[in-house]
């Protein structure tokens, strides 16, 4: 079985958006700071809903935040 991998650029995008804090991003998308930390460390793959909320918080398409690798 081929194991898929989902990477993200959340840390990069936070810094590109006036060094947005993890707390601020968490507040905007309605999750905890711990989840943002887990996402940045690649320890959590979010739901489609949360992924869209994060992309919307940065004002970019979903593909600019999350990349799917097979």
């Amino acid at each position: 079985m081929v194991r898929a991998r989902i990477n993200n650029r959340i840390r990069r995008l936070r810094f590109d958006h006036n060094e947005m804090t993890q707390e601020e991003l968490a507040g905007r998308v309605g999750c905890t700071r711990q989840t943002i930390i887990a996402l940045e460390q690649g320890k959590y793959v979010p739901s489609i809903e949360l992924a869209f909320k994060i992309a919307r918080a940065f004002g970019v398409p979903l593909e600019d935040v999350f990349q799917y690798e097979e």
Partner: protein
Amino acid sequence: MSISQKTAWAQLAIFGALVIAWLVLFIINGTIFYWQNNTMKMTFYWLSAAAFAGLVLMNIIASIVKNRTKSVTDERDRLIFRKASLWATGTSYTVVVALLLALAITYMNGASETVPVNFPLFIVIVGGVTLVLTQAITALIMYGRKVNYGES
């Protein structure tokens, strides 16, 4: 550390202490069912009741905190809770079935007089403690590992 992680640590502390207390009771008395001089005859049950009361109190406090603050738990916490609960239910079920099997074998061998009268209640309590401990340990392990929402 999220409130769910803190709750899991508290569960582990309370019920880990309970299991240690049971072991101490067993080492001192040779049984966990009665206290040797009868001053605290039902020690096992009092200890267990205190632990479960602690669990209830802790959950009441946690729910008050959750209502006061927004976003203290989210989809990741709920996902981990669900997965940990599945593991806990399976483990607890296995432990209870194993103890019931041991009880049945003892009865089939005609040694029913060796079984304390309160052994069935002991099985229920051990099942409950296994459930809470496994739930806490599994949740804490999952908080440190990679979790995929799509695999829920």
